[in-house]
């Protein structure tokens, strides 16, 4: 007999534990039973054609960016590249749903979101090229450094959003994380702080099916990752992560909610990592081509292209224009990445502290002497 079946459960005498009060109703926090979709559904009729076209152009550009960056690894121009091919709808929608004053907290896989937000791709790729850890000024772009230790960027986003709210600024933070990252303690702590503080932050989980080789089924037994939200007292939303219009809409609602003081939202976008984890990974060791093919059919560009075409918003000329624009971006990126970055080894000592310690001054002098000797030897 389970607790819920117990016949007497309804007949309490009126003496429940005194401090206990029925709290928030969990019902509105629970996600839909199926991923929300727009493209190919009746909801599409309500979508703004201009937005759809913007999303389309960005998706095409984004795919081209992924292909180009992957090619750069083969040419030794990038140390490593974690591709977001197949996940462009999430990357693009995340960037476009944000206001300029908002903040983006990307993971290592989210250079595309940073680029769509306006960051120069060469700057976005600095970490992965290996000339420095971050290639841009986070405050100028309101993009936190690409974060490698999983889920550790989530409390940062909460803290920043909280600080902005304390200051009375109309700023929302959007934090991106993978399905694997949801297993980390930092995910839990960040969501809890966010909910307790009602911080204006939105968590976007890209569930791309894998954490390197580990499939979702070994990562969680939850009905969905979005169901984790209720345990923090925030709404959970489940969305088709390959449907750019749906992701944009769900994100927009969550951002608006945060903006008006409604607190955080957890969004799970169901998507798929078409490429291997990075160029260094061999995905054939842990998954079959059949699965990948099924997802190729659900490609984010294809989904949107079909919608736009059916509605007469996109023709061959339009497609070509988008492709050409993407090609121009790629050519420019390729060319600029083929130049060797100019590096100054003395930078190693410049930014460790605001003021160099005597120890670092000694070490800098040592390296300077070595470099001078090297120079002479040449």
């Amino acid at each position: 007999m389970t607790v819920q079946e117990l016949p007497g459960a309804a007949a309490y005498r009126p003496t429940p534990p005194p401090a206990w009060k029925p709290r928030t109703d969990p019902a509105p926090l629970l996600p839909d039973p199926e991923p929300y979709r727009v493209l190919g559904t009746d909801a599409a009729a309500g979508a703004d054609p201009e937005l759809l076209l913007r999303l389309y152009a960005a998706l095409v550009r984004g795919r081209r960016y992924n292909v180009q960056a992957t090619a750069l690894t083969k040419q030794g121009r990038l140390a490593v590249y974690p591709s977001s091919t197949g996940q462009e709808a999430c990357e693009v929608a995340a960037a476009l749903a944000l206001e300029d004053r908002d903040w983006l907290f990307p993971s290592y896989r989210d250079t595309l979101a940073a680029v769509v937000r306006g960051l120069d791709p060469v700057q976005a790729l600095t970490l992965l090229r290996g000339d420095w850890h971050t290639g841009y000024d986070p405050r100028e772009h309101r993009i936190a450094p690409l974060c490698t230790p999983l889920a550790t960027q989530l409390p940062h986003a909460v803290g920043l959003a909280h600080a902005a709210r304390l200051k009375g600024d109309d700023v929302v933070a959007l934090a991106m994380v993978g399905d694997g990252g949801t297993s980390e303690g930092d995910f839990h702590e960040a969501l809890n702080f966010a909910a307790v503080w009602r911080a204006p932050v939105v968590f976007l989980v890209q569930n791309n099916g894998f954490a390197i080789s580990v499939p979702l089924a070994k990562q969680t037994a939850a009905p969905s990752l979005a169901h984790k939200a209720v345990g923090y007292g925030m709404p959970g939303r489940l969305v088709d992560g390959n449907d750019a219009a749906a992701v944009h809409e769900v994100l927009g609602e969550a951002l608006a909610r945060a903006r008006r003081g409604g607190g955080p939202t957890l969004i799970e976008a169901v998507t798929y990592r078409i490429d291997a984890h990075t160029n260094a990974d061999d995905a054939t060791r842990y998954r079959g081509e059949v699965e990948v093919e099924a997802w190729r059919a659900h490609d984010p560009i294809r989904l949107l292209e079909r919608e736009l075409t059916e509605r007469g918003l996109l023709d061959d000329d339009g497609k070509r224009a988008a492709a050409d624009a993407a090609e121009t971006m790629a050519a420019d990126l390729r060319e600029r990445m083929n130049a060797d970055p100019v590096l100054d080894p003395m930078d190693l000592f410049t930014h460790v502290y605001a003021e160099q310690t005597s120890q670092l001054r000694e070490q800098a002098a040592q390296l300077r002497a070595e470099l001078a000797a090297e120079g002479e030897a040449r």
Partner: protein
Amino acid sequence: MTTAAVKPASMAQALQRAMRDAMAEDPTVHVMGEDVGTLGGVFRVTDGLAKEFGEDRCTDTPLAEAGILGTAVGMAMYGLRPVVEMQFDAFAYPAFEQLISHVARMRNRTRGGMPMPITVRVPYGGGIGGVEHHSDSSEAYYMATPGLHVVTPSTVDDAYGLLRAAIASDDPVVFLEPKRLYWSKATWSPDAPSAVEPIGRAVVRRPGRSATLITYGPSVPVCMEAAEAAASEGWDLEVVDLRSLVPFDDETVCASVRRTGRAVVVHEATGFGGPGGEIAARVTERCFHHLEAPVLRVAGFDIPYPPPMLERHHLPGVDRVLDAVARLQWEAGS
């Protein structure tokens, strides 16, 4: 300037005052941690701050150290100056990844674009009869992490001055508070607090000519007592209080050792892999030909911190310091 009545103040009160003054002067200073608000901290070091500045400025957080430090990182990104309390030394460990991978590296990562003016207050060390996990000396971990400053006061005045400097620093400071000195007192004018100390300067607490005791935090009073006792045996010991482990004041320390020709490093942390190794090694590198004897170390044993009833056997006391001094090869010397 009016001279206020001089009255006794404890180190805990001086620390509280440092935060209070910093908060009053600079609206970006925020205190956060477990029980720091309504309760005023388990050691009462944040007493009254929430009342005076409101709960948004002195915040009882959820119970999660990585979350506390991680959100502080985000707050610092937005221009705030968080002062984070870790309730006890061992309870800072859950925040280790945030500390090492972010707090210590963010400035460097962003070429100075995102400094981390965060103060992490950690009550540390033993001698208070604490049960397991309440008496760790964890400074070796912080010292081995480039990007952090590591500071620890041993006097009421320094508690104020160094904490003000830590909060004012644009770099992250791990501020180690010697628990067993919280209730140590000094006559101190709370209306004219002591000077803000620049971080990175050691101080000679007691001048002497025979040998140098290099120490910090909770071991400073032990060394002072040992120096008094040694005087009666004919040793005139100099006591150097490091105050800052990072940056390390090579100048002051080496000047002293060159003068005395002998040195003992004293701390509570375990000896092996502890701070004393670094200190002894760098002093030896720099003062080799001035040394009459190897730099010796008096430290906690290489064991997990003992239960309260046995801690006195573990803690470096006056006798062990004197034993080490006696082993400084006096017969061979100048």
